[in-house]
């Protein structure tokens, strides 16, 4: 309903029928990560390709080409299993930044056709084309133009679903995959959905699906024809909305970024390629996760008031701890100490650690404010802003803070405890310490991680005035 209002200004030129009809386009890039890799490296074309981490590092399939999918490989599958299914599989390590750039380019194209573009993921989005007919002609033609433009300019394939609402357009594009287009004419929504299996409907997960099969409801048509009271009894309020959706009714508006509510929390977590109990490693990882989370926070101009640290042990026992900050902040240095303290309090078991995560919540808009007692924080905060810019331009790992420098070294990717301790050759460092202002004793042996100089050095030190008094 909301988007109808938005286009009210155009309604004078539209016939009554057109006014009631929304036109929503669902756009989905085909095997996006693989497609981008193929643009960069054409030799990957026509071969079964997957993007993801190495099997020995517990990598999972992030994306699979259609050739690979024919072997039964799908995303989120463990890489080891994928390799077993298809021995000729070509594995490519992902290039996140590249995908981000490609995605931006695609959405720039989409924005030419309507301002109401909602990006739901890196490779998927909705366009509300209601009321653009006068400018660009029929929606079907626009869809085809977008497909052609993206293909010719960016060498990426798009699948497009066109319908009167979000829900049906998404089902339509899933139906048209790969590299196709499907237009559900107005009034045809229910008959289009009717023969499809119930799991084709977004919002029906494995549990609901199993439950529906128990009642012999296999097709969306059956679901739509089922009595409302029955679904209400079995699924509660979810049942009724499910029935409505199964008959192709949906009035969720397409929300462009500037209208969408802001994120409630920002989190990062990482499963280590090898379980570890090395405190220096965990500490460095914590800093790294925190840096990337706060960078996103700052990118959106937000401050956080709540910090959560998550830990998962090798036996899958998970723990989380959180704390509220006295004042909202977006500054790594103000968050790292409390985060480390949480981790310290939590990591009490003598078990290897498998995963570490960090989450910032209770977000609010605003400027970071320093306090009187740590005048150096102001300088640090300025530095952090500059680091953000550097990383934006040259990549996340282009510059590192002292605490995380060792993570760049392959020797420090969570030590294998069963292997003999590696001998550290002198003079061969991943980064020239001079660049980071260290030089002297920069890469000390592992037993003294605290001695590493850091860009945020002085944080732990007592402020100068307190020593004087």
């Amino acid at each position: 309903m909301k988007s109808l209002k938005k286009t009210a200004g155009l309604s004078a030129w539209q016939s009554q029928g057109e006014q009631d009809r929304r036109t929503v386009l669902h756009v989905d890039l085909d095997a996006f990560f693989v497609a981008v890799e193929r643009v960069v490296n054409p030799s990957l074309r026509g071969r079964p390709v997957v993007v993801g981490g190495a099997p020995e590092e517990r990598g999972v399939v992030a994306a699979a080409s259609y050739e690979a999918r024919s072997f039964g490989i799908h995303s989120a599958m463990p890489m080891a299993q994928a390799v077993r299914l298809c021995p000729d599989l070509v594995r490519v390590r992902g290039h996140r930044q590249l995908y981000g750039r490609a995605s931006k380019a695609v959405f720039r194209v989409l924005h030419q056709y309507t301002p109401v573009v909602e990006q739901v993921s890196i490779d998927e989005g909705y366009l509300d084309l209601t009321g653009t007919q006068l400018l660009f002609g029929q929606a079907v033609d626009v869809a085809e133009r977008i497909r052609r433009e993206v293909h010719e300019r960016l060498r990426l394939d798009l699948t497009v679903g066109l319908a009167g609402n979000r829900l049906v357009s998404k089902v339509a594009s899933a139906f048209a995959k790969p590299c196709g287009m499907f237009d559900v004419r107005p009034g045809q929504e229910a008959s289009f959905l009717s023969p499809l299996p119930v799991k084709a409907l977004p919002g029906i997960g494995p549990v609901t699906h199993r439950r529906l099969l128990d009642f012999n409801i296999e097709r969306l048509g059956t679901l739509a024809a089922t009595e409302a009271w029955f679904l209400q009894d079995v699924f509660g309020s979810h049942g009724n909305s499910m029935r409505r959706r199964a008959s192709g009714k949906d009035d969720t508006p397409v929300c462009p970024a500037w209208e969408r509510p802001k994120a409630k929390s920002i989190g990062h977590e990482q499963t280590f390629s090898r379980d570890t109990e090395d405190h220096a490693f965990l500490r460095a990882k914590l800093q790294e996760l925190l840096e990337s989370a706060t960078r996103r926070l700052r990118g959106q101009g937000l401050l956080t008031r709540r910090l959560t640290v998550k830990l998962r042990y090798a036996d899958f026992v998970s723990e989380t701890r959180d704390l509220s900050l006295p004042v909202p902040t977006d500054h790594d240095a103000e968050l790292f100490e409390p985060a480390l303290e949480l981790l310290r309090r939590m990591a009490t078991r003598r078990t290897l650690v498998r995963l570490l995560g960090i989450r910032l919540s209770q977000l609010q808009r605003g400027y970071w404010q320093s306090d009187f007692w740590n005048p150096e924080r102001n300088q640090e905060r300025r530095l952090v802003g500059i680091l953000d810019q550097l990383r934006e331009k040259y990549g996340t790992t282009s510059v590192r803070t002292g605490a995380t420098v060792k993570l760049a070294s392959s020797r420090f990717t969570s030590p294998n405890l069963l292997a003999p301790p590696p001998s550290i050759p002198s003079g061969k460092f991943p980064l020239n310490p001079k660049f980071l202002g260290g030089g002297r004793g920069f890469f000390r042996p592992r037993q003294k991680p605290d001695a590493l100089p850091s860009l945020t050095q002085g944080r732990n030190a007592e402020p100068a005035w307190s020593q004087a008094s």
Partner: protein
Amino acid sequence: MHFCVDRIAFRDALQRVEMAIDRKPTRPILGGVLVQAQDDALILLATDLEIAVRYRIGDVQVEQSGWAVLPGKELVEVVKDVESETVSVQLQAEGRCRLEAGEDQCELVTMESSVGSDLDLKSLFPEVPVLPDQASAAVDKATFLQMVSSTRFATSRVQDSRFATEGVLFELNGSEMTLVGTDGRRLACIRREALETSGDKQRSVLLPKVLDQILRFGQDEAVEELQIYFLDSQVGFRIGNLESFGRVLDGEFPNYDNVIPKSTKHLIRAHREGLTKKLRLASHLTQDASSVVRLQISEDSMEVSAEHEGRGRASGSLEVDYGGNGITAQFNPNYLLDGLKVAHGEQVELHMEEASRPAKFVLGEDFTYVVMPLTHFP
């Protein structure tokens, strides 16, 4: 114990000690008020171990001296609501205390009393020091209350792990008194002369609650002078019949002097009320949780503006006395408004070094208020 007292005087006295009655007492007795009747006077005392308040009512018709600890909240409310000129209070047997006020009557269960108890009062009720004759300092009451209201608002609302900034620092050096309140992002500091001092150097962090108490009730006492007593781990104030005690906060107070900027690059003089109005105008269009206003100062004028993403923007400008080549800084408007509310004169001075350094407001004679600006980093 049996006495007859003017109801209004009794009610007002109870209101003064009410703040010290423990709402959630760890020991039941802390939820009570000790009422002592002797020598034609009534002494009320309550404490929650953080603060203690003692109040003396003179000219009371004491039929029989004695004491009782009565349930605090109930006693306060009952005396507030009974309708009569005087209230007569009499201890009964079996731990009852009878209040008679004209037609209205009330019987309260005593927590402890001088009837039927062999125990000494000292072992039953927490001991609150008796103030000596010689005070550590004597000050003009109005001056001191102004000092308190000028600093109390700036204290931290949350407990800081490092500093005792939830309290107000009180320094006594010769006859010079300094009060400082800060929450790490703003700092109010005021200095005045005492009338008379014992000459000792003193430095303690006062509990805000005791300051709130004297700020609220000190005005009503018909005396000009206020006496301050530095006791072992407490500070006592005497204003006429009112005696308030507060625990001294342990923990360090930051070195406030380092925070106050010593040099000035930009000096702006503005009309207090004009600036308040413009700040309030702009603050209506700040984001809910985090408010930011921008002060853009150019020759002879200051523009105060704010912007709310999605709601709009507001700005207003006022004439100021300034001779430099312009500066722009951002502040939390609430911090500035809080300070302007307690400013003494009609004119305020703003001293600034640069946009990212603490700004100093001079809000009166020997009254400085330092505010950390908000800095937007790219």
